[in-house]
Protein backbone atom coordinates (compact mmCIF):
# COMPACT_ATOMS: atom_id res chain seq x y z
CA UNK A 1 0.00 0.00 0.00
CA UNK A 2 1.24 3.43 -0.90
CA UNK A 3 -0.99 6.50 -0.82
CA UNK A 4 0.19 9.83 -2.19
CA UNK A 5 -1.82 12.87 -1.16
CA UNK A 6 -1.56 16.52 -2.12
CA UNK A 7 -3.40 18.93 0.14
CA UNK A 8 -3.64 22.49 -1.11
CA UNK A 9 -5.41 25.73 -0.26
CA UNK A 10 -4.98 29.23 1.12
CA UNK A 11 -2.47 29.79 3.89
CA UNK A 12 -4.49 29.86 7.11
CA UNK A 13 -6.95 27.17 6.02
CA UNK A 14 -5.00 24.55 7.90
CA UNK A 15 -3.84 22.56 4.88
CA UNK A 16 -0.40 21.93 6.40
CA UNK A 17 -1.87 20.78 9.70
CA UNK A 18 -4.39 18.60 7.86
CA UNK A 19 -1.40 16.83 6.33
CA UNK A 20 0.29 16.57 9.72
CA UNK A 21 -2.78 14.86 11.19
CA UNK A 22 -2.42 12.20 8.50
CA UNK A 23 1.34 11.94 9.06
CA UNK A 24 1.07 11.60 12.85
CA UNK A 25 -1.74 9.08 12.54
CA UNK A 26 0.32 7.05 10.06
CA UNK A 27 3.21 7.03 12.53
CA UNK A 28 0.90 5.83 15.33
CA UNK A 29 -0.17 3.02 12.98
CA UNK A 30 3.51 2.11 12.44
CA UNK A 31 3.31 3.07 8.79
CA UNK A 32 6.07 4.93 6.99
CA UNK A 33 5.20 8.49 6.12
CA UNK A 34 6.67 11.72 4.74
CA UNK A 35 5.11 15.18 5.11
CA UNK A 36 6.62 17.77 2.82
CA UNK A 37 5.29 21.34 2.86
CA UNK A 38 5.69 23.90 0.14
CA UNK A 39 7.92 26.49 1.71
CA UNK A 40 8.91 29.96 0.72
CA UNK A 41 7.54 33.47 1.08
CA UNK A 42 4.14 32.13 2.13
CA UNK A 43 1.61 33.98 4.24
CA UNK A 44 -2.01 33.98 5.36
CA UNK A 45 -4.10 34.36 2.22
CA UNK A 46 -1.33 33.11 -0.06
CA UNK A 47 -1.32 29.55 -1.35
CA UNK A 48 0.12 26.63 0.56
CA UNK A 49 0.27 22.92 -0.04
CA UNK A 50 1.83 19.80 1.35
CA UNK A 51 2.65 16.40 -0.06
CA UNK A 52 2.02 13.41 2.17
CA UNK A 53 3.09 9.88 1.33
CA UNK A 54 1.88 6.99 3.49
CA UNK A 55 3.19 3.50 2.89
CA UNK A 56 3.61 0.14 4.55
CA UNK A 57 7.14 0.15 3.15
CA UNK A 58 9.80 2.81 3.73
CA UNK A 59 8.90 5.89 1.70
CA UNK A 60 11.66 6.77 -0.75
CA UNK A 61 10.67 9.85 -2.75
CA UNK A 62 8.56 12.45 -0.94
CA UNK A 63 7.93 14.24 -4.25
CA UNK A 64 4.53 13.53 -5.76
CA UNK A 65 4.08 13.76 -9.54
CA UNK A 66 0.73 11.98 -9.72
CA UNK A 67 -1.24 12.02 -6.47
CA UNK A 68 -3.68 9.26 -5.59
CA UNK A 69 -5.71 11.87 -3.77
CA UNK A 70 -6.02 15.64 -4.10
CA UNK A 71 -7.62 17.67 -1.37
CA UNK A 72 -8.41 21.09 -2.85
CA UNK A 73 -9.47 23.70 -0.32
CA UNK A 74 -9.72 26.59 -2.79
CA UNK A 75 -10.14 27.29 -6.50
CA UNK A 76 -6.52 28.01 -7.47
CA UNK A 77 -5.45 24.73 -5.85
CA UNK A 78 -8.01 22.71 -7.76
CA UNK A 79 -6.94 24.37 -11.02
CA UNK A 80 -3.26 23.74 -10.26
CA UNK A 81 -3.49 20.05 -9.39
CA UNK A 82 -6.67 18.67 -10.95
CA UNK A 83 -4.95 17.24 -14.01
CA UNK A 84 -2.12 15.69 -12.01
CA UNK A 85 -4.33 13.28 -10.09
CA UNK A 86 -3.82 9.76 -11.34
CA UNK A 87 -6.55 8.10 -13.30
CA UNK A 88 -8.79 6.28 -10.86
CA UNK A 89 -7.70 8.59 -8.06
CA UNK A 90 -9.76 10.74 -5.72
CA UNK A 91 -10.40 14.47 -5.52
CA UNK A 92 -11.96 16.06 -2.46
CA UNK A 93 -13.33 19.48 -3.29
CA UNK A 94 -14.10 22.08 -0.63
CA UNK A 95 -17.41 23.19 -2.16
CA UNK A 96 -17.74 26.08 0.30
CA UNK A 97 -15.13 27.96 -1.69
CA UNK A 98 -15.16 26.12 -5.02
CA UNK A 99 -18.36 26.53 -7.03
CA UNK A 100 -17.20 24.64 -10.10
CA UNK A 101 -17.41 20.93 -10.83
CA UNK A 102 -14.56 18.65 -11.79
CA UNK A 103 -14.95 17.77 -15.46
CA UNK A 104 -12.69 14.72 -15.38
CA UNK A 105 -14.64 11.48 -15.49
CA UNK A 106 -11.79 9.09 -14.64
CA UNK A 107 -11.55 10.14 -10.99
CA UNK A 108 -13.77 9.85 -7.95
CA UNK A 109 -14.89 13.30 -6.78
CA UNK A 110 -16.39 14.22 -3.46
CA UNK A 111 -17.76 17.70 -2.76
CA UNK A 112 -17.63 18.64 0.89
CA UNK A 113 -19.21 21.85 2.16
CA UNK A 114 -16.48 22.10 4.76
CA UNK A 115 -17.39 25.55 5.99
CA UNK A 116 -21.05 24.71 6.68
CA UNK A 117 -20.12 21.41 8.34
CA UNK A 118 -17.48 23.15 10.46
CA UNK A 119 -20.07 25.66 11.64
CA UNK A 120 -22.36 22.73 12.44
CA UNK A 121 -19.54 21.35 14.60
CA UNK A 122 -19.33 24.71 16.34
CA UNK A 123 -16.26 26.45 14.88
CA UNK A 124 -15.57 27.60 11.33
CA UNK A 125 -11.84 27.03 11.90
CA UNK A 126 -12.37 23.26 11.98
CA UNK A 127 -13.09 23.07 8.23
CA UNK A 128 -9.76 21.29 7.68
CA UNK A 129 -10.67 18.66 10.28
CA UNK A 130 -14.05 18.14 8.60
CA UNK A 131 -12.18 17.41 5.38
CA UNK A 132 -9.77 15.15 7.26
CA UNK A 133 -12.77 13.14 8.45
CA UNK A 134 -14.16 12.92 4.92
CA UNK A 135 -10.78 11.85 3.58
CA UNK A 136 -10.33 9.10 6.19
CA UNK A 137 -13.85 7.80 5.47
CA UNK A 138 -13.17 7.72 1.72
CA UNK A 139 -9.63 6.42 1.67
CA UNK A 140 -9.83 4.02 4.62
CA UNK A 141 -6.01 4.19 4.83
CA UNK A 142 -6.14 4.75 8.58
CA UNK A 143 -8.61 3.56 11.22
CA UNK A 144 -11.13 6.13 12.49
CA UNK A 145 -9.98 5.66 16.12
CA UNK A 146 -6.31 6.31 15.34
CA UNK A 147 -6.98 9.67 13.73
CA UNK A 148 -9.59 10.49 16.37
CA UNK A 149 -6.97 9.90 19.09
CA UNK A 150 -4.41 11.95 17.17
CA UNK A 151 -6.68 14.97 17.76
CA UNK A 152 -6.13 14.51 21.53
CA UNK A 153 -2.38 14.28 21.07
CA UNK A 154 -1.91 17.25 18.74
CA UNK A 155 -4.18 19.54 20.74
CA UNK A 156 -2.68 18.42 24.06
CA UNK A 157 -1.70 21.99 24.87
CA UNK A 158 -5.08 23.41 23.82
CA UNK A 159 -7.51 20.94 25.47
CA UNK A 160 -10.41 23.38 25.07
CA UNK A 161 -10.51 22.88 21.30
CA UNK A 162 -10.45 19.07 21.40
CA UNK A 163 -14.24 18.48 21.63
CA UNK A 164 -15.13 20.77 18.72
CA UNK A 165 -12.40 19.24 16.54
CA UNK A 166 -13.55 15.73 17.38
CA UNK A 167 -17.09 16.71 16.49
CA UNK A 168 -15.86 18.22 13.22
CA UNK A 169 -13.96 15.01 12.46
CA UNK A 170 -17.06 12.89 13.10
CA UNK A 171 -19.27 15.14 11.00
CA UNK A 172 -16.76 15.04 8.14
CA UNK A 173 -16.38 11.28 8.43
CA UNK A 174 -20.14 10.75 8.37
CA UNK A 175 -20.68 13.19 5.50
CA UNK A 176 -19.25 10.65 3.09
CA UNK A 177 -21.72 8.05 1.94
Amino acid at each position, binding site marked *: MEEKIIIAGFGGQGVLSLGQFIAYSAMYENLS*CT*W*LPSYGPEMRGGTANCSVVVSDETV*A*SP*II*ATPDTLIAMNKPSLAKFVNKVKSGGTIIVNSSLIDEKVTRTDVKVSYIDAQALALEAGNAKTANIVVLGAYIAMSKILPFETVYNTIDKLFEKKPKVIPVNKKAFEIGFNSVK
Partner: protein
Amino acid sequence: MKKLLKGNEAIAEAAIRGGCRFFAGYPITPQNEIPEYLSWRLREVGGEFVQAESEVAAINMVYGAGGAGARAMTSSSSPGISLKQEGISYIACAEIPCVIVNMVRSGPGLGGIQPAQGDYFQATKGGGHGDYHLLVYGPATVQECVDILYNAFDVSEKYRTPVMILGDGMLGQIMEAVELPEMKDLTKLPAKPWATDGTGVGEKRRIINSLYIEPDDMEVVIKRLYARYDEIKRNECKAETYKTEDAEIILTAYGTVGRIAKSAVNILRSKGIKAGLLRPITLYPFPDYEYAKLADKAEVKEFVDIELCMGQMIEDVKLALNGKKPVRFFGRLGGNVMSAEDIVDFVLGEVK
Protein backbone atom coordinates in the same frame (compact mmCIF):
# COMPACT_ATOMS: atom_id res chain seq x y z
CA MET B 1 9.03 5.61 20.83
CA LYS B 2 9.14 7.28 17.46
CA LYS B 3 8.70 11.02 17.04
CA LEU B 4 7.57 12.93 13.97
CA LEU B 5 10.19 15.63 13.39
CA LYS B 6 11.18 18.11 10.73
CA GLY B 7 14.66 17.51 9.34
CA ASN B 8 15.92 20.78 10.82
CA GLU B 9 14.51 19.97 14.27
CA ALA B 10 15.89 16.45 14.12
CA ILE B 11 19.34 17.78 13.25
CA ALA B 12 19.18 20.12 16.25
CA GLU B 13 17.95 17.50 18.71
CA ALA B 14 20.40 14.83 17.50
CA ALA B 15 23.25 17.33 17.82
CA ILE B 16 22.22 17.97 21.45
CA ARG B 17 22.05 14.24 22.16
CA GLY B 18 25.42 13.81 20.48
CA GLY B 19 26.92 16.37 22.85
CA CYS B 20 26.54 19.78 21.18
CA ARG B 21 26.85 22.39 23.92
CA PHE B 22 27.65 25.51 21.93
CA PHE B 23 25.96 26.98 18.89
CA ALA B 24 26.56 30.27 17.13
CA GLY B 25 24.74 31.23 13.98
CA TYR B 26 23.01 33.91 11.99
CA PRO B 27 19.51 33.47 10.52
CA ILE B 28 18.97 32.39 6.92
CA THR B 29 16.26 30.37 5.18
CA PRO B 30 15.85 27.36 4.88
CA GLN B 31 17.63 26.30 8.06
CA ASN B 32 16.12 28.67 10.64
CA GLU B 33 14.45 25.89 12.63
CA ILE B 34 17.91 24.68 13.67
CA PRO B 35 18.94 27.84 15.58
CA GLU B 36 15.33 28.42 16.68
CA TYR B 37 15.25 24.97 18.29
CA LEU B 38 18.72 25.22 19.79
CA SER B 39 18.02 28.69 21.20
CA TRP B 40 15.83 27.13 23.91
CA ARG B 41 17.06 23.54 23.88
CA LEU B 42 20.74 24.26 24.53
CA ARG B 43 19.86 26.13 27.73
CA GLU B 44 18.02 23.05 28.99
CA VAL B 45 21.20 20.98 28.82
CA GLY B 46 23.52 23.66 30.21
CA GLY B 47 24.86 24.77 26.83
CA GLU B 48 25.16 28.17 25.23
CA PHE B 49 23.38 29.61 22.21
CA VAL B 50 24.53 32.79 20.52
CA GLN B 51 22.79 34.59 17.70
CA ALA B 52 25.86 36.28 16.32
CA GLU B 53 26.01 39.63 14.57
CA SER B 54 27.15 37.96 11.35
CA GLU B 55 28.16 34.65 9.82
CA VAL B 56 31.82 35.62 10.12
CA ALA B 57 31.39 36.22 13.85
CA ALA B 58 29.45 32.97 14.26
CA ILE B 59 32.09 30.73 12.70
CA ASN B 60 34.84 32.40 14.71
CA MET B 61 32.84 31.83 17.91
CA VAL B 62 32.68 28.17 16.94
CA TYR B 63 36.45 28.27 16.40
CA GLY B 64 36.90 29.67 19.90
CA ALA B 65 34.43 27.37 21.62
CA GLY B 66 35.76 24.32 19.80
CA GLY B 67 39.29 25.33 20.70
CA ALA B 68 38.25 25.48 24.34
CA GLY B 69 37.06 21.89 24.04
CA ALA B 70 33.30 22.43 23.67
CA ARG B 71 31.26 20.45 21.19
CA ALA B 72 30.51 23.42 18.97
CA MET B 73 28.28 23.75 15.96
CA THR B 74 26.99 26.29 13.46
CA SER B 75 24.45 26.07 10.68
CA SER B 76 23.63 28.21 7.71
CA SER B 77 22.66 28.08 4.06
CA SER B 78 24.73 28.63 0.93
CA PRO B 79 25.49 32.41 0.97
CA GLY B 80 26.01 32.24 4.73
CA ILE B 81 28.37 29.29 4.36
CA SER B 82 30.37 31.27 1.79
CA LEU B 83 30.82 34.00 4.39
CA LYS B 84 32.05 31.39 6.87
CA GLN B 85 34.73 29.97 4.59
CA GLU B 86 37.63 31.98 6.00
CA GLY B 87 36.82 30.74 9.49
CA ILE B 88 36.33 27.17 8.29
CA SER B 89 39.78 27.21 6.69
CA TYR B 90 41.32 28.49 9.94
CA ILE B 91 39.48 25.83 11.94
CA ALA B 92 40.64 23.07 9.59
CA CYS B 93 44.23 24.29 9.82
CA ALA B 94 44.09 24.63 13.61
CA GLU B 95 42.69 21.07 13.74
CA ILE B 96 39.66 22.06 15.79
CA PRO B 97 36.68 19.71 15.78
CA CYS B 98 33.27 21.21 15.05
CA VAL B 99 30.11 20.55 13.07
CA ILE B 100 28.87 22.81 10.28
CA VAL B 101 25.43 22.31 8.73
CA ASN B 102 24.73 23.69 5.26
CA MET B 103 21.08 23.47 4.18
CA VAL B 104 21.88 24.36 0.60
CA ARG B 105 19.74 26.75 -1.45
CA SER B 106 19.95 27.54 -5.12
CA GLY B 107 22.60 29.87 -6.43
CA PRO B 108 25.00 31.42 -7.32
CA GLY B 109 24.51 34.72 -5.57
CA LEU B 110 21.76 35.18 -3.05
CA GLY B 111 19.91 32.70 -5.24
CA GLY B 112 16.64 31.18 -4.12
CA ILE B 113 15.54 29.20 -1.07
CA GLN B 114 14.40 26.00 -2.77
CA PRO B 115 16.49 22.79 -2.82
CA ALA B 116 19.74 22.67 -4.80
CA GLN B 117 23.09 20.89 -4.77
CA GLY B 118 25.35 23.57 -6.22
CA ASP B 119 27.53 23.68 -3.10
CA TYR B 120 29.00 20.22 -3.66
CA PHE B 121 32.33 21.53 -4.96
CA GLN B 122 32.57 24.07 -2.16
CA ALA B 123 31.85 21.45 0.50
CA THR B 124 33.98 18.59 -0.78
CA LYS B 125 36.98 20.33 -2.29
CA GLY B 126 37.80 22.48 0.70
CA GLY B 127 35.65 25.56 0.30
CA GLY B 128 37.93 28.16 1.77
CA HIS B 129 41.51 28.88 0.84
CA GLY B 130 44.34 26.44 1.25
CA ASP B 131 45.03 22.76 1.20
CA TYR B 132 42.37 21.04 3.29
CA HIS B 133 39.10 19.13 3.24
CA LEU B 134 36.15 18.62 5.52
CA LEU B 135 34.48 15.33 6.32
CA VAL B 136 31.22 15.82 4.41
CA TYR B 137 27.97 13.88 4.82
CA GLY B 138 24.92 14.07 2.55
CA PRO B 139 21.98 12.55 4.45
CA ALA B 140 18.81 11.60 2.56
CA THR B 141 16.26 11.03 5.29
CA VAL B 142 15.41 12.57 8.64
CA GLN B 143 16.54 9.39 10.41
CA GLU B 144 19.86 9.56 8.60
CA CYS B 145 20.22 13.19 9.74
CA VAL B 146 19.74 11.97 13.31
CA ASP B 147 22.22 9.11 12.99
CA ILE B 148 24.90 11.29 11.39
CA LEU B 149 24.53 14.28 13.74
CA TYR B 150 24.50 12.02 16.78
CA ASN B 151 27.97 10.74 15.95
CA ALA B 152 29.31 13.80 14.13
CA PHE B 153 31.13 15.26 17.15
CA ASP B 154 32.77 11.92 17.98
CA VAL B 155 34.07 11.58 14.44
CA SER B 156 35.14 15.23 14.26
CA GLU B 157 37.08 14.91 17.51
CA LYS B 158 38.61 11.57 16.59
CA TYR B 159 40.16 13.00 13.45
CA ARG B 160 40.35 16.63 14.60
CA THR B 161 38.64 17.54 11.34
CA PRO B 162 35.55 19.74 10.96
CA VAL B 163 32.45 17.83 9.81
CA MET B 164 30.01 19.33 7.34
CA ILE B 165 26.44 18.16 6.77
CA LEU B 166 25.15 18.99 3.31
CA GLY B 167 21.35 19.05 3.15
CA ASP B 168 18.73 21.21 1.50
CA GLY B 169 15.44 22.89 2.34
CA MET B 170 13.48 19.79 1.43
CA LEU B 171 15.40 17.75 4.00
CA GLY B 172 15.05 20.59 6.49
CA GLN B 173 11.30 20.97 6.06
CA ILE B 174 10.20 17.37 5.57
CA MET B 175 8.66 15.56 8.55
CA GLU B 176 9.34 11.89 9.13
CA ALA B 177 9.10 9.53 12.06
CA VAL B 178 12.46 9.05 13.75
CA GLU B 179 13.95 7.06 16.56
CA LEU B 180 16.02 9.36 18.78
CA PRO B 181 19.02 7.90 20.59
CA GLU B 182 19.84 8.43 24.28
CA MET B 183 21.83 11.46 25.40
CA LYS B 184 25.56 10.80 25.19
CA ASP B 185 27.38 10.77 28.51
CA LEU B 186 29.79 13.66 28.06
CA THR B 187 31.78 12.73 31.17
CA LYS B 188 33.03 9.63 29.35
CA LEU B 189 34.50 11.29 26.27
CA PRO B 190 38.20 10.91 25.42
CA ALA B 191 40.43 13.67 26.85
CA LYS B 192 41.40 16.62 24.64
CA PRO B 193 45.03 17.26 25.56
CA TRP B 194 45.17 20.00 22.93
CA ALA B 195 42.19 22.06 24.11
CA THR B 196 42.70 25.43 25.77
CA ASP B 197 40.25 24.61 28.52
CA GLY B 198 42.29 25.67 31.54
CA THR B 199 43.58 22.19 32.33
CA GLY B 200 47.19 21.00 32.02
CA VAL B 201 48.67 23.65 34.28
CA GLY B 202 52.43 23.18 34.48
CA GLU B 203 52.52 21.19 31.24
CA LYS B 204 53.64 22.39 27.83
CA ARG B 205 51.68 25.48 26.85
CA ARG B 206 48.71 24.72 24.57
CA ILE B 207 48.47 26.98 21.55
CA ILE B 208 45.71 27.03 18.98
CA ASN B 209 46.92 28.64 15.82
CA SER B 210 46.61 28.53 12.06
CA LEU B 211 49.64 30.70 11.24
CA TYR B 212 52.75 28.81 10.12
CA ILE B 213 55.32 31.20 8.75
CA GLU B 214 58.03 28.56 8.38
CA PRO B 215 57.43 26.51 5.18
CA ASP B 216 58.67 23.34 6.88
CA ASP B 217 56.18 23.79 9.70
CA MET B 218 53.25 24.38 7.34
CA GLU B 219 54.25 21.37 5.25
CA VAL B 220 54.16 19.12 8.31
CA VAL B 221 50.67 20.32 9.19
CA ILE B 222 49.28 19.79 5.69
CA LYS B 223 50.78 16.30 5.51
CA ARG B 224 49.25 15.49 8.90
CA LEU B 225 45.82 16.67 7.68
CA TYR B 226 46.04 14.53 4.57
CA ALA B 227 47.19 11.49 6.52
CA ARG B 228 44.00 11.91 8.53
CA TYR B 229 41.87 12.18 5.39
CA ASP B 230 43.34 8.85 4.28
CA GLU B 231 42.43 7.36 7.63
CA ILE B 232 38.92 8.83 7.41
CA LYS B 233 38.58 7.33 3.96
CA ARG B 234 39.50 3.88 5.28
CA ASN B 235 37.21 4.05 8.31
CA GLU B 236 34.30 6.36 7.67
CA CYS B 237 33.33 6.14 3.99
CA LYS B 238 29.67 5.24 3.60
CA ALA B 239 27.36 4.56 0.69
CA GLU B 240 23.99 2.90 0.20
CA THR B 241 23.50 0.44 -2.60
CA TYR B 242 19.98 -0.55 -3.60
CA LYS B 243 19.12 -3.35 -6.01
CA THR B 244 22.56 -3.21 -7.61
CA GLU B 245 23.14 -6.99 -7.48
CA ASP B 246 21.87 -7.65 -11.01
CA ALA B 247 21.56 -4.05 -12.20
CA GLU B 248 22.44 -2.96 -15.72
CA ILE B 249 21.83 0.75 -15.18
CA ILE B 250 23.18 2.36 -12.02
CA LEU B 251 21.52 5.58 -10.91
CA THR B 252 23.71 7.64 -8.63
CA ALA B 253 22.65 10.63 -6.55
CA TYR B 254 23.12 11.92 -3.02
CA GLY B 255 20.92 13.49 -0.36
CA THR B 256 17.25 14.04 -1.09
CA VAL B 257 17.84 13.35 -4.79
CA GLY B 258 19.17 9.95 -3.71
CA ARG B 259 15.81 8.99 -2.26
CA ILE B 260 13.94 10.29 -5.32
CA ALA B 261 16.26 8.15 -7.47
CA LYS B 262 15.42 5.19 -5.26
CA SER B 263 11.76 5.53 -6.22
CA ALA B 264 12.88 5.82 -9.85
CA VAL B 265 14.68 2.47 -9.48
CA ASN B 266 11.44 0.89 -8.27
CA ILE B 267 9.46 2.33 -11.20
CA LEU B 268 12.13 1.20 -13.70
CA ARG B 269 12.13 -2.28 -12.17
CA SER B 270 8.33 -2.42 -12.54
CA LYS B 271 8.88 -1.74 -16.26
CA GLY B 272 11.33 -4.65 -16.46
CA ILE B 273 14.47 -2.52 -16.51
CA LYS B 274 17.24 -3.70 -14.25
CA ALA B 275 18.12 -0.48 -12.47
CA GLY B 276 19.99 -0.01 -9.23
CA LEU B 277 21.05 2.89 -7.01
CA LEU B 278 24.41 3.89 -5.59
CA ARG B 279 23.97 6.70 -3.08
CA PRO B 280 27.08 8.15 -1.45
CA ILE B 281 26.49 9.08 2.19
CA THR B 282 29.97 10.51 2.75
CA LEU B 283 30.67 12.97 -0.05
CA TYR B 284 34.23 13.57 1.11
CA PRO B 285 35.94 11.20 1.28
CA PHE B 286 34.07 9.91 -1.75
CA PRO B 287 33.20 6.19 -1.65
CA ASP B 288 34.89 5.56 -5.03
CA TYR B 289 35.52 1.87 -4.31
CA GLU B 290 31.76 1.26 -4.54
CA TYR B 291 31.78 2.75 -8.04
CA ALA B 292 34.88 0.80 -9.00
CA LYS B 293 33.24 -2.45 -7.87
CA LEU B 294 30.16 -1.83 -10.00
CA ALA B 295 32.22 -0.57 -12.94
CA ASP B 296 34.00 -3.92 -13.05
CA LYS B 297 30.75 -5.86 -13.43
CA ALA B 298 30.12 -6.95 -17.00
CA GLU B 299 26.34 -6.56 -16.81
CA VAL B 300 26.56 -2.89 -15.78
CA LYS B 301 26.06 -0.91 -18.98
CA GLU B 302 25.99 2.68 -17.77
CA PHE B 303 25.72 5.09 -14.88
CA VAL B 304 23.23 7.94 -14.67
CA ASP B 305 24.29 10.76 -12.37
CA ILE B 306 21.43 12.90 -11.05
CA GLU B 307 21.91 16.21 -9.28
CA LEU B 308 20.22 19.51 -8.53
CA CYS B 309 22.94 21.48 -10.32
CA MET B 310 24.84 21.46 -13.60
CA GLY B 311 26.85 18.42 -12.50
CA GLN B 312 29.42 18.58 -9.74
CA MET B 313 29.46 15.16 -8.10
CA ILE B 314 29.68 13.71 -11.62
CA GLU B 315 33.37 14.65 -11.64
CA ASP B 316 34.01 12.38 -8.66
CA VAL B 317 31.85 9.70 -10.25
CA LYS B 318 33.91 9.84 -13.45
CA LEU B 319 37.17 9.73 -11.52
CA ALA B 320 35.91 6.71 -9.61
CA LEU B 321 34.77 4.93 -12.79
CA ASN B 322 38.05 5.77 -14.47
CA GLY B 323 36.54 5.57 -17.95
CA LYS B 324 35.31 2.00 -17.50
CA LYS B 325 31.63 2.81 -17.99
CA PRO B 326 29.77 5.70 -19.64
CA VAL B 327 27.99 8.27 -17.48
CA ARG B 328 24.92 10.24 -18.46
CA PHE B 329 23.84 13.32 -16.54
CA PHE B 330 20.39 14.53 -15.53
CA GLY B 331 19.90 17.69 -13.49
CA ARG B 332 17.35 20.29 -12.51
CA LEU B 333 18.31 23.81 -11.53
CA GLY B 334 17.39 26.92 -9.66
CA GLY B 335 15.40 25.20 -6.93
CA ASN B 336 13.38 22.94 -9.23
CA VAL B 337 13.28 19.33 -8.08
CA MET B 338 12.77 16.37 -10.37
CA SER B 339 10.23 13.67 -9.58
CA ALA B 340 11.00 9.97 -9.75
CA GLU B 341 8.95 9.90 -12.97
CA ASP B 342 11.18 12.62 -14.50
CA ILE B 343 14.23 10.46 -13.79
CA VAL B 344 12.54 7.44 -15.35
CA ASP B 345 11.71 9.44 -18.49
CA PHE B 346 15.31 10.58 -18.73
CA VAL B 347 16.71 7.08 -18.27
CA LEU B 348 14.35 5.76 -20.94
CA GLY B 349 15.45 8.52 -23.28
CA GLU B 350 12.11 10.28 -23.34
CA VAL B 351 13.55 13.65 -22.39
CA LYS B 352 15.19 15.90 -24.92
